[in-house]
């Protein structure tokens, strides 16, 4: 039984099994559920992820305050015109991450991954990457298992709660999970998954949680889009053979240490960061009065 990412990677090597197999066997042992049931539940969740990632691409969602209504559609139309700076893959990832965030803000159905506020990252990265690579559903679900394994490790050894660790813990963790899943989809090794996790998390170390008016909208949607992009560039760096140098487990621990030291104003209380700017305060007053 692994307790950290190093343990997961070495268990895969020692047993000569693929990484998702180790996560799967662990899940079977923990819950007593069958392999069939676990895959069935993974597929249900994947379908919900896909639907949330696609639903707002062509239709702006209604929500309290409307801070992010129509963001996904705007990004999608821009991407469809074909003259973007960062290319169609990156732009479709951003548009899909924004879509899930709009669905979430509008009280639509999403799959928390690992949280509701970060629900756009894994679906966007995995959908766009699986389309690009022509992955099968089986490969997607195996990669989702790996993402889940990474998320469980971060939850156990740090936190995925914005109130406890800031945005680095929510969107940062989602980005790290998505980075590992992208490496896995691309056929990368367990070590490359580990490096992608380390690189993704160090790229957002210290990111604060500062929701305007306390709503899960701004900067949440942009953070979902940017951490989704962080996930794929971290995956690409790991696949190129870059090392995180600092082992991913140590990066996870340091993320937690940084999160604990963040002042409470910067952890989901809407008292600091962009929430405390003159415009942030004005928007709050505009939406909720006084």
């Amino acid at each position, binding site marked *: 039984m692994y*307790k950290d990412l190093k343990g997961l990677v070495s268990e895969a090597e020692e047993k000569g099994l693929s990484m998702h197999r180790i996560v799967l066997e662990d899940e079977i042992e*923990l819950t007593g559920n069958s392999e069939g049931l676990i895959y069935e539940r993974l597929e*249900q969740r994947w379908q*919900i992820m896909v639907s949330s990632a696609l639903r707002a691409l062509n239709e702006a969602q209604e929500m*309290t305050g409307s801070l992010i209504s129509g963001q996904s559609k705007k990004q999608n139309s821009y991407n469809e015109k074909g003259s973007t700076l960062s290319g169609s893959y990156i732009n479709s990832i951003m548009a899909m991450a924004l879509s899930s965030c709009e669905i979430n803000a509008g009280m639509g159905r999403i799959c*928390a991954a690992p949280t*509701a*506020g970060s629900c756009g990252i894994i679906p966007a990265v995995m959908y766009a990457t699986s389309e690009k690579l022509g992955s099968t559903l089986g490969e997607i679900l195996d990669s989702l298992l790996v993402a889940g394994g990474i*998320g469980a490790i971060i939850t156990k050894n740090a936190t995925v709660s914005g109130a406890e660790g800031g945005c680095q813990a929510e969107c940062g963790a989602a980005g790290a999970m998505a980075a590992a899943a992208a490496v896995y989809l691309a056929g990368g090794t367990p070590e490359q998954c580990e490096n992608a996790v380390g690189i993704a998390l160090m790229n957002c170390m210290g990111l604060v949680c500062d929701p305007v008016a306390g709503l*899960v909208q701004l900067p949440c949607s942009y953070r979902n889009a940017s951490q989704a992009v962080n996930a794929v560039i971290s995956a690409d760096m790991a696949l190129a053979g870059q090392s995180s140098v600092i082992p991913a487990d140590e990066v996870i621990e340091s993320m937690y240490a940084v999160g604990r030291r963040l002042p409470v104003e910067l952890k989901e209380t809407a008292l600091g960061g962009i929430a405390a700017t003159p415009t942030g305060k004005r928007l709050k007053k505009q939406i909720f009065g006084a």
Partner: protein
Amino acid sequence: MNISIFDVIGPVMVGPSSSHTAGAVKLARIAALISGKPFYRVTFALHGSFAKTGVGHGTDRALLAGAMGLDEDNEMIKNAYELAESRGLEYEFFEKDLGDVHENSCEMTFLHDDGSKSVIAGSSIGGGRILITGIDGVKTDISAEQPTLLIRQFDRKGVIHRITKALLDCGINIGVMRLTREERGNIATTVIETDDFLPPELAETIQAIENIISVRIIES
């Protein structure tokens, strides 16, 4: 690893917040289930963060939807007010300091069609998980994560023995069992969490035992 992958790939829910939306739906749904009888009016006393930041997260609509039996992933939650109106359900929300409890807490009062009243308190403790902390003034800690039996009985010798015998006869393993009573010989509350599905017949079997006041099966 002692954390399920479905704790981080999930839950499936309507947004925007696992604690202020999904947890609120579950809290009210379980409370209504515990109240156990049809009701025509429900009131929600909101404490702490539920009172202060709840509206932006749809906590009010989530609680009302949960009381009407909707699940956490039902997209009708945002239309809870319209739904309550169409069902003729009266409701009210107000702020109340519930004392030294979790930030995301609520006290729900159900006025039943038969003229009786149930007061159920609880908290949304994060990630969509909940705790029912009080039923009609008796302290509890029901998470509703496992199939749960909630039994109220007169505090008499042999009652517990007969309850556990009924479970054994159904082949059900008890995971956790808690017995609380206000005073000796008075009314006692038994909460049993099990590993197995609880068949509805079991409630009838236990209800038939002498000195049992009420039995509820809580399956989330």
